[in-house]
């Protein structure tokens, strides 16, 4: 078990190394002078020279890389070009809304999609099944921003049940915060729910056709006991995988959802930094997001070992 976890842990290092090199090379790959690119169209020669010195762009490339990697390993992601604040502090300031949004989406999506998928598989080919599957095909095609604006239009503008946009931090009260997250979480979760429901149904269908399920049923166990304890547990590996893979989908979606709902999180920080060409922030965020994704994949792989002891090879 621990050998498996260790091996899996070691495998994340080359991936992060490639990401780090990629992020470093990204700016240097651009045609022309990166300093001029960052400075923008109406910069003076002095501005450009200033940026070049600050980013160390006048040093040889290997030297730049060593400095950059050294900084990252010490938790230093550089300094924003515009605000002059450390990137790590800027990221920390915007962390709460994004974490809350991701958590709310995860809770909404998993708690709705898994039961729906189980229900659809249990009542396979029934009307319920058709509705769930219909939703999962449609839901997967709806872009986050369409879902977001439709929800805003119905629940915020027409019915006035929830706020149109914006985020209330936890410090302003738990309920106010939750209220500001309901619509964004549903919008962001739509495609995610569709995906989870679909895989849950497929995985359950496969398990439900097994002999031991028939045995469990015929010896008179309660239906919910068979469904949840015997079937769902054995169907869990693909479901957990898709919940993990789906988080990657969520990260891309977060950027768009935060723009639709005007939530001042990491997604907005990314878009604002990109539009202002504040590259140290963009580089730092790509690293942080990639690290999150690699970490989640690691967690998913480790969870396999718990869910299915056969995987502990």
């Amino acid at each position, binding site marked *: 078990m621990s050998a498996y976890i260790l091996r899996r842990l070691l495998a994340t290092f080359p991936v992060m190394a490639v990401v780090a090199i990629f992020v470093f090379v990204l700016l240097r790959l651009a045609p022309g002078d990166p300093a001029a690119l960052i400075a923008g169209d109406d910069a003076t020669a002095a501005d450009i020279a200033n940026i070049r010195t600050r980013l160390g762009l006048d040093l040889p490339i290997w030297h730049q890389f060593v400095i950059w990697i050294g900084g990252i390993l010490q938790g230093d992601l550089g300094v924003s070009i515009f605000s002059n604040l450390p990137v790590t502090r800027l990221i920390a300031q915007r962390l709460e809304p994004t974490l809350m949004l991701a958590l709310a989406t995860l809770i909404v999506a998993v708690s709705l999609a898994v039961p729906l998928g189980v229900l659809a598989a249990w009542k396979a080919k029934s009307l319920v099944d058709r509705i769930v599957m219909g939703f999962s095909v449609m839901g997967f095609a709806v872009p986050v921003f*369409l879902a977001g604006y439709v929800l805003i239009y119905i629940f915020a503008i027409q019915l006035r049940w929830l706020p149109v946009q914006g985020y209330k931090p936890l410090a302003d009260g738990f309920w106010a915060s939750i209220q500001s997250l309901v619509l964004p979480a549903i919008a962001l979760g739509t495609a995610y729910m569709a995906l989870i429901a679909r895989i849950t149904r497929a995985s359950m269908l496969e398990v439900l056709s097994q002999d031991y399920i028939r045995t469990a049923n015929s010896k008179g166990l309660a239906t919910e006991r068979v469904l949840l304890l015997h079937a769902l547990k054995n169907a869990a590996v693909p479901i957990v995988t898709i919940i993990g893979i789906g988080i990657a989908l969520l990260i*891309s979606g977060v950027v768009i959802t935060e723009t639709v709902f005007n939530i001042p999180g990491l997604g907005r920080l990314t878009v604002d930094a990109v539009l202002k060409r504040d590259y140290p922030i963009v580089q730092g965020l790509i690293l942080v997001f990639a690290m999150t994704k690699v970490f989640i994949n690691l967690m998913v792989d480790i969870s396999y070992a718990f869910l299915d002891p056969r995987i502990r090879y």
Partner: protein
Amino acid sequence: MSAASIALEPAAGRASSGLWSEIRRNPTIFLGCAILLVLAACAILAPWIAADPLKHAPVNRLKAPSAEFWFGTDQFGRDIYSRIVYGARVSLIVGLSVAAISSVLGLTIGLLCGFYRWFDGIVMRIMDGIMAIPSILLAIALITLVHPSLTVVIIAIIIPEVPRIVRLVRSVVLSIREQPYIDGAVAGGTKAPRLLVRHVLPNAVAPLIVQATYVCASAIITEAGLSFLGAGVPPEIPSWGNIIAQGRVFFQLTPWVILIPGVFLALTVLAVNMLGDGLRDRLDPRLARRM
């Protein structure tokens, strides 16, 4: 289609039937194709069926949908119907070119990875690294490095899509190369390039076509998302994402400027996905059973 049929001949006896009867028999493929054909016709015929999508007419600004302006107008008085018809061009071009180019790239790299161990070691590490970066972030970062244009957007969407295809093709190759008939071919003196093209490639075509439709759908959504964020095709090009982005300011006043192109976008993606699901059920029965 014919190449895909060859690949399946041992498994499916009905592979000889024509493309058309296949499409008619499968309602999912039929509906998906029908929607896409109508959209493609609109995109091609745009100059004849739509007005100038760029014409500003301040007199007509923020008009609700009516007989004159089917889908209303935006804050500059531009006709949303015409903009959507022209926008279909952008979405279809992006979807098709990303699907085609990333398939070819992914197929080539995947075949080589499956056959040459040293190549595999290096390339797969790079692919894992690219896949660790959320696709829309990677695309935004790439686009802002150069002056944005449709071509740049297409390239920026291709790069995060390629690893998904490489992984798929590589896994097919790895399973095929263990088959006895490959050993037989090798023993018979067949050289690697011929082995790849004659024996491995046909087996990779069916899953590749299915994957390509999903890449197409995802590319269309990504392009709209990028344009929505202001980091996609230049704002003067009427793409669905740009129409939606420019409608944000007046959303409470004129929700149709966002909702109507949004519905077209969802419908297009739905059609491509339906085509993909239908093809998957038809071409790859093993995968279909798992889904």
